């Protein structure tokens, strides 16, 4: 009897512990390794899709990148002028550098106005209850946008004009 109860108690303890482990993992979901001003490996080892990246780039509830940036191959009516044009950004920056800038620009420029799209929610002040414990983009979505920007070669501008 005592033996059985012990097993039961151990099981319960394990279950409770595993619950904690999960919630801890959820809080620290934005795990990535920063090297200098880059993140060298894709977030969560995921592969991005450029077509999805383009949609996220324009979507006002997702990347909303056009709120601040210009990208001349996109014919959307309004492009913001707060950030630099992202035409040929892949010529200026490596994929790994672009990944960090989208993930959390504040690691590069602490005064940046650019939101950290995959910044740890723990570093956010007074996040709305609607967005608790979430990031603006998922790791997959960051990878999609990275792959989209990397797919824009200088000749893809020439083609459109």
């Amino acid at each position, binding site marked *: 009897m005592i033996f059985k109860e012990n097993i039961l108690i151990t099981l319960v303890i394990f279950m409770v512990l595993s619950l904690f482990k999960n919630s801890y993992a959820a809080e620290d979901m934005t795990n990535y390794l920063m090297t200098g001003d880059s993140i060298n490996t894709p977030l969560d080892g995921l592969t991005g899709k450029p077509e999805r990246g383009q949609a996220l780039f324009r979507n*006002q509830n997702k990347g909303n990148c*056009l*709120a*601040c940036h210009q990208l001349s191959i996109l014919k959307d*009516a*309004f*492009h*913001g*002028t*707060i950030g630099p044009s992202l035409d040929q950004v892949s010529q200026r920056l490596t994929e790994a550098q672009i990944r960090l800038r989208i993930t959390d620009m*504040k690691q590069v420029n602490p005064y940046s*106005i650019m*939101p*950290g799209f995959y*910044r740890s*929610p723990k570093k*956010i*002040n*007074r*996040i*709305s*209850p*609607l*967005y608790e414990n*979430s*990031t*603006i983009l998922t790791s997959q979505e960051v990878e999609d946008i990275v792959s989209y920007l990397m797919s824009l070669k200088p000749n893809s501008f020439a083609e459109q004009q």
Partner: protein
Amino acid sequence: MITLRAFRYSFLNLVFLFTLFPSTPLRAELISGYEFLSNQAKDMQNDDFQNPGYLMIEKGLEVYNTRGENEKSCNHCHGNNGEKFTPKSIAQFPKFHNLLQAPVTLRDQIQFCWDKRLDNFPLLYDDTDLLALETMIRNKAYGEKVNVDTSGEMQPYYEAGKKFYFTRFGQMDMNCSQCHDVYTGRMLRGQKLSQGQTNGFPLFRLESQKMVNLPQRLRECFHSLRAQTFEQDSNEFRNLEIYLNARGNGLKIETPAIRY
């Protein structure tokens, strides 16, 4: 030699200018949100018949003349149609209230009178009657320059508001200053960023087609930042209002303004 001399002269000139206008070259020029409007929206603001704010003023006058629990109405002290209000005094809000020993916004002052002078049950801060009264009274100071005191008893509240202004909020992780100081004049998609001045409040927003007071507008900002907002009569928003109004000291009151 000549260039050196020219340099010396221009340098002296600069020193001279600095002594004449010690703070001018360092302070950004104040620009009312009016300057960021299209011509059509400007015309709308200036036309009493097109500007929906004037309907709110009419409603405000109705409330102004309504008798309270003690049979008095606002006109008992402030005259017919508010003719006894002094624009200079209205332009000083928020200001220190000696009885309450705290700063009060114009809304707080209206609430104070509503309760203590008319014996009425306090209004909710979201109540249209309060918005209407504020619009009507602030309009009495139309054209008067905003003039908020930031010294003495007001100073700690002003400083708290200023600190708030530079604090990042929400998932967008931005502070007020980034949009309204650093990137003023740049385009956020189709919208030119203004200085976020408060001289037009309460105002009619074209985007939501609604009259709003300042805290209501601030709540919309917090929504855009994906941040947990504050209550309309919270100390945080009150302090921020002190900072924002004082930041626009010298701008002319435009209530009821039209803004995007």
